[in-house]
């Protein structure tokens, strides 16, 4: 699983190449942050196959507005599911899912001019929420069987950027 904050210019034609690269193999480090080992990635398929809530454990679970899949959203386990909620202005969301058993939820709430791309190769879970962000470009690249990602990115009143997983 790789997460990258990249410039808006990179989110154009590079996405197609990126998903191909993500499906083929975990790409090199360079601009991306490797977050899980291959062993942790293997656990992803187990998690996504269960309709149980997937949310950060520990203290985060009580404070974070995590998306919890309902039985309805997980009923078609062999297929893909993509949810996009945009409440703001001029935000762009691109989601590409290949294979099966992908689940992606993208929420852009209150923000403007954000670009989000989620590329999943199969048996992947992603929940990404942006709150009040402006001009942010985020790409989530998940090769087949990646560990689930559950992330909240919010622009705080003091101007800071909160990134919580």
């Amino acid at each position, binding site marked *: 699983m790789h997460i990258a904050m990249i410039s808006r210019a990179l989110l154009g034609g590079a996405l197609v190449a990126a998903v191909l690269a993500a499906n083929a193999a975990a790409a090199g480090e360079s601009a991306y942050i490797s977050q899980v080992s291959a062993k942790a990635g293997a656990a992803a398929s187990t998690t996504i196959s269960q309709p149980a809530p997937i949310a950060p454990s520990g203290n985060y679970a009580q404070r974070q507005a995590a998306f919890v899949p309902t039985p309805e959203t997980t009923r078609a386990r062999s*297929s893909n599911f993509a949810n996009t909620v945009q409440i703001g*202005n001029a935000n762009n969301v691109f989601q590409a899912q290949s294979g099966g058993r992908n689940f992606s939820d993208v929420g852009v709430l209150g923000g403007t001019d954000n670009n989000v791309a989620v590329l999943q190769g199969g048996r992947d879970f992603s929940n990404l929420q942006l709150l009040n962000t402006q001009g942010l470009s985020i790409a989530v690249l998940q090769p087949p069987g990646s560990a689930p990602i559950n992330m909240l990115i919010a622009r705080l009143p003091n101007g800071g950027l909160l990134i919580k997983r």
Partner: protein
Amino acid sequence: MQVSAAPAIECVIRAEPETDGLRIAALARAAAPASGQYRLQVAKQSASGSSHTVQSGAFTLEAGQEQVLTTVVLDRSAIGHYRAELSLQSDQETSSCTSP
């Protein structure tokens, strides 16, 4: 919702407004057992922004069975501002349909 004319594998896009959004489901029906690949593209352009979703994968249908292949949910601003295209490809034929 538009249904293709091909009788062997039927292609259906079901768009249903819900309380929280617009649910777009890609379905397939077959008169005889069939398998192949599907591809669903959904594009939406509204005041809140644009969204483009591409989903693909394999399907296997039994005779007379209707199966939901994949699902896309968009916020309610997508109602009246989206376009979906589903294509099914099996060994025997290719079928496609669009919505709206």
